């Protein structure tokens, strides 16, 4: 199957929306190539604001634009956009409640062998603790399109996290009832639930398929909105399946797994396993190699699922 870059879909969708919505502007930080925003720049040269390599400035400028009625989308590498500009995001965007959309490109470990300076494995942890900013991650091109449309209508701060790798389709069209803050159950099951987002949704589905052969019925949930998190869906999964595994292309500390655990322990404690990048500079390499190294492969997820089900049945 053809793999598609989500960032390319975001650009195409923005071009379309910008046709009727004259307030849409895109800001880049010497990043229009890596963000796939060149087509937007060609189509609307006066609406692409180039800031140069200055991520703090770009977020502040976007806040000013938003305050004046524009709808800025800031497309910049996730690593720099979030940690470098943390204070601008906290104060100028979230606290001042400006209508800024942050597009964090090449997120997670997708910059592979470029090392920790280029990995963004702390962005969810950081932004999650800031009030008034939504965090969303598309799993495929259909979700990327839905998200871009909905975010362009939604008034308020949001961060869309976009991987660098092209991804396979998870959905077959845009019509699956996408709603901000409402998770999508992709596969039903009652042995355990895997909750994940972004590139690893596909890995989770592959793992669930393998488990099926072993008689394990794994529920797979795409948590495309990490904040505000869909508590209802998590509680339901905990109650109905009795075990929860989370997978994140992020540090296992204070990230997505932690967000899920906060809901689980306070509502319906069940055994959990948090898969992700441990507390170390991620090993350099291609995404696939790095994921495999940290046990995020369909085969290993099956093993982890078996362990978790064992705990569910027999206790710790």
């Amino acid at each position, binding site marked *: 199957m053809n793999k598609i870059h989500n960032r390319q879909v975001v650009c195409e969708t923005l071009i379309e929306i910008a046709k009727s919505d004259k307030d849409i502007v895109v800001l*880049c930080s*010497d*990043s*229009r*190539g*890596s963000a796939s925003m060149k087509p937007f720049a060609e189509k609307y040269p006066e609406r692409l604001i*180039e*800031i*140069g*390599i*200055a*991520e*703090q*400035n770009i977020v502040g400028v976007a806040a000013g634009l938003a305050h004046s009625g524009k709808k800025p989308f800031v497309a910049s590498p996730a*690593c*720099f956009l979030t940690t*470098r500009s943390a204070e601008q995001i906290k104060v100028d965007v979230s606290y001042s409640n400006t209508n800024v959309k942050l597009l964090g490109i090449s997120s997670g470990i997708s910059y592979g*062998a*470029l*090392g*920790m*300076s*280029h990995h963004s494995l702390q962005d969810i942890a950081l932004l999650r603790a800031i009030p008034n900013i939504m965090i969303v991650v598309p799993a495929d091109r259909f979700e990327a399109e839905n998200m871009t449309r909905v975010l362009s209508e939604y008034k308020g701060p949001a961060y869309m996290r976009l991987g660098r790798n092209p991804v396979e389709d998870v959905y077959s069209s845009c019509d699956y009832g996408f709603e901000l803050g409402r998770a999508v159950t992709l596969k039903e099951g009652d042995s355990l639930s895997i909750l994940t987002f972004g590139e690893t949704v596909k890995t989770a589905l592959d793992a669930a398929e393998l488990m099926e052969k072993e008689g394990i019925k794994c529920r797979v949930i795409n948590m495309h909105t990490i904040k505000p998190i869909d508590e209802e869906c998590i509680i339901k999964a905990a109650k109905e399946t009795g075990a929860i595994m989370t997978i994140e292309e992020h540090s296992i500390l204070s990230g997505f797994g932690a967000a899920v655990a906060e809901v689980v322990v306070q509502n319906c404690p069940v055994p959990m396993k948090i898969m992700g990048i441990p507390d170390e500079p991620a*090993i*350099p*390499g*291609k995404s696939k*190699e*790095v994921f495999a*190294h940290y046990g995020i492969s369909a085969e290993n997820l099956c093993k982890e699922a078996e362990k978790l089900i064992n705990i569910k049945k027999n206790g710790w």
Partner: protein
Amino acid sequence: MNKKISQNVNLQKKAAQIRRDIVDIVYRTSAGHIGGSLSETDILVALYYEVMKIDPKNPHWSERDRFILSKGHAIDAYYCVLADRGFFDKERLQTYSQFGSDFIGHPNRAIPGIEMNTGALGHGLSIGVGMAIAGKMDNKDYRVFVLMGDGELAEGSVWEAAMAAANYKLDNLVAIIDRNRLQITGKTEDVMALTPLEDKWKSFGWNVSVVDGHDIPSICNALSKENKIDGVPSLIIAETIKGKGISFMENNASWHHGVMNADQYKMACEELDKMLEVLS
């Protein structure tokens, strides 16, 4: 005088050899940042073969001059120079950019000779200010060199550091700008204009010189201690050509991190081999 001339030829030859090594490692891994590596090569050769006080066998020697590659993406030239200077065995570069290698796409301190982990632009000068202040506090006479890209100068932190360096009268700090006039998107003057660059730095209280960044004797001259003004940090604007030495890459932004195909690799090697022959 004759000795000086032959030494210059030797350094030129060294630079051509380093460029040849860069082409090899970049081609082998299909990664790297070749444009900015080729533009900074002569600067690194001047520093590591002539100007800096270093001991490759003792990379932590307390009296050594410090160097920070603030434009960390241009690691290819840096690795090749450090290997050739004997900081580590050149064979180790075989693993460059491979899974689990210490030789990743940006400087990191696991590699002997590398002082600081960089890769996020706009950090190096602040770190250099810290090292230079420490040198003053400890009455050491080492110097601190920081190499920045010109696109990098859009980062506000560079100017915060520039202010601090003048404030603390850091005449032991030398910043170098690889002024190749290109960044990823295109010309620096189109992306975020820097001109008048010299005046900006002068107004920040720096001792500014402009040199041909591919003329090694001029670079050495500008970097020499004699060029220092007491109580004033020094800035060298090295006018360079991005992709220098490989004609089809020169002044072409798409070679920022372009990857060569087999034909391009062959052409690049031929051009550099010819250059080496002329210099021999």
